[in-house]
């Protein structure tokens, strides 16, 4: 059984070189294919991409930056949802050790909402359970993204960036509501 195979059947330089090249080609095509598919889902908007740096006009916020010690001049002074004159919805959220404000963010079902998050102290995470909303809250900076909640109900809002001893209890919620006519 363990008799040596004829040497000719051991791997040789030329066969290997051929397979190497084929494999190199496959690997390259795979990498490019991945890139193209990600771009496709990117442009089709299957996930909420983050904007910042003045992508939104927010009072008191410049280039996506603000003073974390003083929210007074900004909408973050009164966190929560608001409806703009043009009918669009914006929500302002402040993360701080160890809770989000507002503790329950109420949003309308089926309507695009732009959420702006910042932090009053250290880094926090803004992750809504069961969704692909997953962003960093940074003191001095505003993270903005637009999303549409399609089903009514209450979702857990979990801080998923280490923020200190109370990190694992930093859980609040987002309440998706059917609007009163």
């Amino acid at each position: 059984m363990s008799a040596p195979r004829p040497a000719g059947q051991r791997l040789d330089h030329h066969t290997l070189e051929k397979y190497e090249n084929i494999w190199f080609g496959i690997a390259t095509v795979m990498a490019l294919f991945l890139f193209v598919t990600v771009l496709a889902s990117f442009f089709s908007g299957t996930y909420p991409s983050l904007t910042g740096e003045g992508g939104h006009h927010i009072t008191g916020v410049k280039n996506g930056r603000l003073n974390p010690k003083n929210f007074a001049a900004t909408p973050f002074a009164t966190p929560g949802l608001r409806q703009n004159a043009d009918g669009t919805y914006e929500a302002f959220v402040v993360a701080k050790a160890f809770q989000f404000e507002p503790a329950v963010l109420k949003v309308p079902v089926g309507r695009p909402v732009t959420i702006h998050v910042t932090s009053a102290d250290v880094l926090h995470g803004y992750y809504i359970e069961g969704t692909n909303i997953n962003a960093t809250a940074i003191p001095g900076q505003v993270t903005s993204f637009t999303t549409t909640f399609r089903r009514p109900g209450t979702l857990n809002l979990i801080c998923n960036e280490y923020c200190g001893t109370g990190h694992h209890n930093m859980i609040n919620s987002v309440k998706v509501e059917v609007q009163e006519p």
Partner: protein
Amino acid sequence: MTTSPGFSPAPQPKSAQAPQPASSSHSARQAPVIADAAYLASLKKVTQYYLVTAFLALLVGTLMGPLQALNYGGINVYDNPILKALLKSYYQGLSLHGVLNALVFTQFFISGFLLYLPARDLGMKINMKFAWFTYVLMTAGLLTAAVPLLTNDATLLYTFYPPMEGSPVFYIGAAVMVGSSLLVVGQVVNMWMRWKRANPGSVTPLVAFMSVATWMMWAVAALGIVTEVVFLLIPWSLGWVAGVDPLISKTLFWWTGHAIVYFWVLPAYIAWYAFLPNHAGGRIVSEPLVRLTFVMFLLNSTPVGLHHQYADPNISVTWKTMHMFLTFLIAIPSLLTAFSVAASLEDAARARGGRGLFGWMLKLPWGRPTFSAPVLAMVSFILGGAGGIVNASSTFAPVIHNTAWIPGHFHITVGTATTLTFMGISLWLIPHLTGKRMPSVRLASAAVWTWFVGMMVFALGMHWQGLYGVPRRALVSATAQSVYRDMPIAIPQLLTAISGVILLVSAVLYFYVLFRMLLSKRVDDGEVSSPIPYSEVISPAGTKLAGASALVRYTEPLLALWGVALLLVLLMYGPVLARLFANAELVPGWRLY
């Protein structure tokens, strides 16, 4: 043919019955003899010091692991009075685990391994005073950083994102420790350049080539973290500046933070490419291809770090997407590695009489830990790499970012591909350096297999929990709200808890073997009983540049390629950082632990 301890040579085809074309196999490298015995002894000693320091860090760091696995099994042991006396919190333990395992163990091991290998491969003399100085400095940095870690004054986790603030002693110690690795870079590049001058027109031998390329890559990569710590965090923690911009810091951290994974894994690749064929009884497939792989890593490892920041604001999506593209490209050299090493193994198995499309695998020496450790590490890395592609895709990332999926992922990459390979290396390298013997092949083999099985179960449990959104870095077993109790995660929690127990057993077995070996008496000359396990080669790179293939000639000028690597990083990071600095918003520090 060189053999490793306990190795029974593969049956060689007898020339009478099976004539083999002379050109199809090239004998294993004979490294130049080092005649100066005192020098060689000192070189071996400093290498051994690096390795032992590395494994002591791993021992302490790993102890925390099973406790964390229990946490992800839904069991909180952190209220236990004994544990409370030792650890102020889950997060202090986790900081120790991350720093000691991911930063200290790896860096010390690599500093020893990749100093020794090129010195032997080239037969060069290095300045031993400088080598010892570097070791002492690195260790001093480690001990300095360890104090605040142990006193709960740097419970920042291994990423130490500001504005969570730690004691300045931590940042200073960390800077000294990481900075010392750049001295090793200097020493290795210097010895290689002296060798080039002494051997004009020669091709750098493979092991030295891979080592030099790895160190060059690390030098480019380390610039980010060194800049962050030295210029931003130390002055801030000392109160010299009023604040810190968290996003600039995080961006500099990930400049290093992704490439560091290649710094961890390339030394393992060196062992897979150069030594594993010997352990298996096979041959290296193609030296020119290996050189190409390492050049790709040198060029492409660093300008990809923004893929860790998809969730961060104020960095343009265009730049994130460019880094994502380069991240996908860096999968190519890893895919080439999978091909080459698998071919080496098949070659070995067929030489041992293996047959069939897959049946040959049975002929490999699975019971030998110097063989099984790197191979199982590689199997683990194939799975880890597949998961890594998910992490790197900006569209998938939001689903798993900062969830338990991530630790699930990197315990089968750095925690197994690297760690298990290094464990396997220690089993021949320590006998080689010291003339001591592995005390028990069976126990060592059991340690290797249980580590592999434990980490597979761990990865399954953690990836699975991550898909439900269980966050990483959290004492989830003590969360007041019912969120995690309401998730359908009983099975993955159970798997995670069980894996912690398997891994504890594995660690006990491995460290027993390691320390039995280290504390035993020298029995023979390691140069003879456990030589560096060089392998035969099917397609060598040759020794003279004149007449070498184009691939060999174009990969030889590493200094120039190093410059290109630096340029690429500046191109891919320069504009991003320039904008961040222009809009910097300094914020004050906090201590919330």
